[in-house]
């Protein structure tokens, strides 16, 4: 099939333009107008002045308005499932927090955030934990998302910004290698920036993105690292080393070159299942393209070796001389709406605002001064996301948890166990707009405003800070997350330091980030509106922002990118006689993350009503599974059931489950990457059995 990627026809709505804002879902942050209609419904139309989507929207974006007036919206707080007033709910939560901390110390109350929260909320949540609760126990679901890419890019470049260049640069690249990403489903308008003739996709499944590509490398799950090492081996052997660039802009090449001599392509072929000829073709495409880009997604990153896999792809990009060259580079495709900003401003266990490190004395002094506290009173680093969830309700772990913008009952690995840990808490406070799977377990549920009902900033996958404007009034009875934090702080005796107005919080964030790696100090709401977004770093009022970082130097002490030796290792849990098939998980077009929002939009549940198990016809034949059969998927940590969908698009040794429903993550492996603490979501071993006939 041939594709035309020229801009489609304009589909501007006949309605007068509404409020210019951005989509509530993924990190592409498509521009959209929200218009309140006479029927008190919100109409969505795409904006064509936003480079990321260029007038496009996927079904999730088009139907985003449905969530604003969803009958599933929570409009009153709940205490133990019973409606309560705000004063009562906040008072109850605050008194229980105080009681737990009095008995067990500050770390007995934890905070868990999300990569969908605005910069203002992420910042305020981090400050709330450290200043109001004085707990070290804060982390967020971005640990399950971007942490491996962030760790690897920090290690190599001294800075982590998902795309270090505007997304429109991709259109100028003669070749793009996308390892472990399915943008055609996860963020469809992204595809408008890709040239199919130069696209190489690495994925165990022939995804819609792989079908667009000129070359698909269909590797076995958990072998991305071996493949990347072999691609680098070939690049060196075939004489594609950018000698001058490597000499001038990198360190560590010699050791990396020696180390990949052990990964000749025929060896990697046996490990990955990718034919040598295809590997050679991929390298030739990248090396001969003029401009080329290497991208990684969660498929390559969500492993206990994800940081090293990203490092290997960065080594490949550096060897070819791509990063820091206009039109070329390495980037990671951020997933969650504010996955980028969410990892910069202090809701991560080891971080302070501005992408500062919490164990750096200078960083602590700066942030403590902005917060008006003694640096010595700031807690140190706490547990990473899975370790935090795993410790809940244990003798050494937190007894209380405040949860914002996340749904770990669905989204954490070994989720059945995590549901048990959440149930063991003395206090679980959940702020959400609907009664999510996790909120159902909560002691206190606080109904929040959402996306188009409040203002704030989001930092998209390019590192471009965007303005989310208030377009409609929230339903009566709900409060914003910032109002909730303000109210709790007041009841904890910390009133005054936690304003509820987003712009006031942003101004404080600017000061807190000043001088840090992610410097927002020169960004204002007005500048964002005027420029259509501002790329960080933006260190001064008269600074226009930085669309392309790394052009002159890398922000490492010597200005050079660091190449680091890494080696392949097999999946933590490989297949065996008892669990003979690989399970991998991923996203569907119609749903976002844990599905808490999208499973409550009728058009989307109609498009994708339930989880399914994708398996190859050969495997289905072997096991006697027919389309529509109910199949039990059993792993070492749990069991789930799903309807069989038979497709030659997946490897015969691998099955796939979409993770938007409670179930699939009961099976996934919480083995952690030693550097990033990312769990091994993308590969574990399972067995299959038919439990019911087709419907």
């Amino acid at each position, binding site marked *: *099939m*041939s*594709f*035309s*990627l*020229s*801009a*489609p*026809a*304009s*589909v501007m709505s006949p309605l007068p333009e509404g409020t210019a804002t951005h989509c509530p879902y993924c990190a592409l942050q498509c521009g959209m107008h929200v218009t309140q209609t006479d029927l008190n419904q919100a109409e969505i139309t*795409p904006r064509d002045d936003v480079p990321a989507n260029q007038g*496009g*929207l*996927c*079904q999730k974006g*088009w139907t985003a308005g449905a969530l604003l007036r969803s009958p599933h919206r929570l409009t009153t707080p709940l205490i133990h499932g019973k409606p309560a007033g705000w004063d009562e709910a906040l008072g109850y939560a605050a008194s229980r927090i105080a009681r737990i901390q009095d008995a067990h110390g500050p770390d007995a109350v934890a905070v868990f955030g999300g990569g969908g929260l605005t910069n203002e909320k992420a910042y305020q949540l981090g400050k709330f934990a450290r200043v109001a609760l004085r707990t070290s126990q804060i982390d967020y679901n971005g640990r399950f998302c971007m942490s491996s890419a962030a760790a690897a890019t920090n290690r190599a470049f001294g800075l982590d910004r998902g795309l270090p260049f505007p997304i429109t640069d991709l259109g100028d690249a003669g070749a793009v290698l996308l390892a472990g990403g399915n943008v*055609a*489903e996860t963020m*469809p*308008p*992204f*595809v*408008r920036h890709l040239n199919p003739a130069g696209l190489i996709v690495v994925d165990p499944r*022939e995804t*819609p993105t792989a*079908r*667009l590509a000129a070359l698909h490398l269909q590797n*076995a799950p958990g072998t991305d690292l071996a493949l990347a090492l072999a691609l680098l081996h070939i690049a*060196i*052997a*075939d004489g594609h080393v950018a000698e001058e660039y490597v000499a001038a802009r990198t360190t560590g090449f*010699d*050791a990396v*070159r*020696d180390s990949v*001599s*052990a990964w*000749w392509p*025929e*060896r990697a*072929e*046996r490990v*990955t*299942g*990718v*034919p*040598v*000829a295809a590997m050679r073709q991929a390298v030739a495409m990248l090396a001969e393209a003029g401009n080329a880009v290497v991208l990684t997604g969660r498929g390559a990153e969500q492993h206990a070796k994800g940081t090293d896999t990203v490092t290997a792809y960065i080594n490949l990009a550096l060897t070819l001389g791509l990063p820091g060259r206009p039109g070329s580079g390495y980037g990671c495709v951020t997933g969650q709406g504010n996955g980028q900003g969410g990892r910069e401003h202090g809701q991560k266990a080891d971080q302070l605002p501005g992408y500062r490190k919490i164990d750096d004395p200078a960083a602590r002094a700066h942030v403590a001064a902005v917060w008006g506290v003694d640096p010595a009173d700031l807690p140190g680093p706490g547990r990473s996301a899975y370790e935090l969830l795993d410790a809940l309700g244990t003798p050494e772990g937190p007894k209380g948890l405040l949860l914002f913008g996340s749904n770990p009952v669905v989204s954490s690995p070994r989720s059945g166990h995590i549901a048990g840990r959440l149930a063991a808490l003395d206090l679980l406070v959940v702020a959400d707009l609907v009664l999510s799977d996790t909120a159902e377990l909560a002691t206190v549920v606080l109904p929040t405003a959402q996306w188009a009902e409040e203002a704030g900033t989001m930092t998209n996958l390019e590192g471009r800070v965007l303005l989310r404007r208030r377009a409609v009034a929230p339903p009566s009875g709900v409060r914003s997350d910032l109002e909730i934090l303000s109210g709790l702080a007041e009841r904890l005796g910390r009133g005054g330091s936690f304003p509820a107005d987003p712009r006031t919080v942003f101004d404080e964030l600017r000061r807190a980030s000043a001088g840090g790696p992610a410097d927002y100090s020169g960004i204002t709401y007005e500048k964002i509106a005027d420029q259509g977004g501002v790329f960080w770093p933006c260190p001064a009022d008269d600074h226009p922002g930085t669309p392309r970082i790394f052009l002159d130097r890398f922000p490492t002490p010597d200005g050079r990118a660091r190449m680091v030796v890494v*080696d392949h290792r097999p999946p933590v849990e490989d297949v065996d006689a008892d669990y003979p098939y690989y399970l991998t998980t991923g996203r569907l*077009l*119609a749903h976002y993350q844990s599905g808490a929002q999208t499973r409550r939009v009728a058009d989307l549940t109609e498009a994708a009503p339930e989880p399914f198990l994708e398996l190859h016809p*050969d*495997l289905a*034949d*072997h096991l006697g599974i027919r389309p529509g059969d109910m199949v039990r998927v059993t792993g070492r940590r749990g069991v789930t059931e799903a309807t069989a969908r038979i497709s*030659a*698009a997946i490897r*015969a*040794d691998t099955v796939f489950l979409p993770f938007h429903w409670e179930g699939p993550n009961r099976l996934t492996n919480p083995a952690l990457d030693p550097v990033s603490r990312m769990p091994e979501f993308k590969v574990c071993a399972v067995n299959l059995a038919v439990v019911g006939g087709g419907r």
Partner: protein
Amino acid sequence: MRGIVVVGNGMAGSRLVSEVRARDKKARVTVFGAEERAPYNRVLLSNVLAGTTRADQVRLHGPSWYDDHNVTVHLGTEVVAIDRETRCVITADGGRTPFSVLVLATGSEPIVPAVPGAERAIAFRTMDDCERILAAANAARRAVVIGGGLLGVEAARGLAGRGLPVTLLHLKGHLMDRQLDHEAGQVLGDTLEGLGVEIMTGVTVTGITDGKVELTTGHVEADLVVAACGVRPVTALALDAGLHVERGIVVDDEMRTDDPAIFAIGECAQHDGQVYGLVAPCWEQAAIVADLITGADARARYRGSRLVTRLKAKSVELAAMGETHLTDADAEIVRFTHRRGGTYRKLVIRDGRLVGAILVGDPATVGTLTQLYDRGGPLPADRSGLLFPGLAGAAPVSPSPVRMPDAAQVCRCNNVTKGQIRACWEAGARDVAAVAAATRATTGCGSCAETVGGIVEWLCEQEGASA
């Protein structure tokens, strides 16, 4: 102070040292290498000979690696004896190094043909050999490679690729007879001849003179002779020390010799009657010994390896694995031959499992087959898909607007079917923009714009035809 001593710094020995360091940063490690060079990847020497890889690109460890990793290395130092009484190894200069654990990774040496003038032939085993061959190739007018096994084929192909006329001599009836059946050997020979390698099979070399290789049936002219006649394990050290040696140094599932403090790995070791000559088993053995001697995994055991041979020669794609010589009488054979096209594909299946395979020519399914062979995965009832990728269960090609059923999804991003586009056309939408405004088709990734255009055009034509 006693520690781990490794004799041999080739593929197996150097790998063992890396594997030990990956598990244990502190253990005292000393390694002796007979070659002066830092360890290099012997597998890639064929590429160096062919000129597709530079000599400086095959190094496994750089000069600073040993210091950086706190490993004592003695390059160009031969160990001449093992004193099992005092637990020491003794070098040629009389130096004694005590060990608590000794790992023998002495490798193998080339077999020199037992004919007059054999010293005129250059073996193809080490980087030094490779450099000698390359130096000679510059001045040579005709080359002969003796031995049509894996290494001989790679060497002949490499020399031919440098523009040198090459004759490849092989004792048996077809090339790579250990890995290939007769027909596959013939196809390989054809392919090599097309690349400038003259093939002579079933010939016996009787002597090498200045300028000639003598055969029982005549002679071949050559001023460069490369011998690739196989290798034999280097076992003298072990034999002198009184260890149990048969063809190789005999080891158990822990790769331990009959002295529990002494291990042997790689091409010098004999496990379960097998001496392995490929790198994959040597590296598996190194990982197991590293697990055992560092205590990382006391239960690690070696159970033998499945062998996959992959030829590395430009424009010659060849993979062979497992039991390739079985016939229809012993197993289920699936075969496709196209000799003129340089293609031969054979699967050997027993009890529903792939136990052997040969692929010559474009091996698009080689990755899948290797993994099915390694893991014993279930095979499809329709075997053709294993030989021809995409044949079984292939995705349908772009359907024409006419044939596409109404339920077919046209726009994935907005979940729009052909039926919905037809309905909106019937309601008056006559171009892509109007269809997009009504259905949102084409407004996501934009890839379906052409298909939507085709459907609208077809519907308009239909209207014109029926009007």
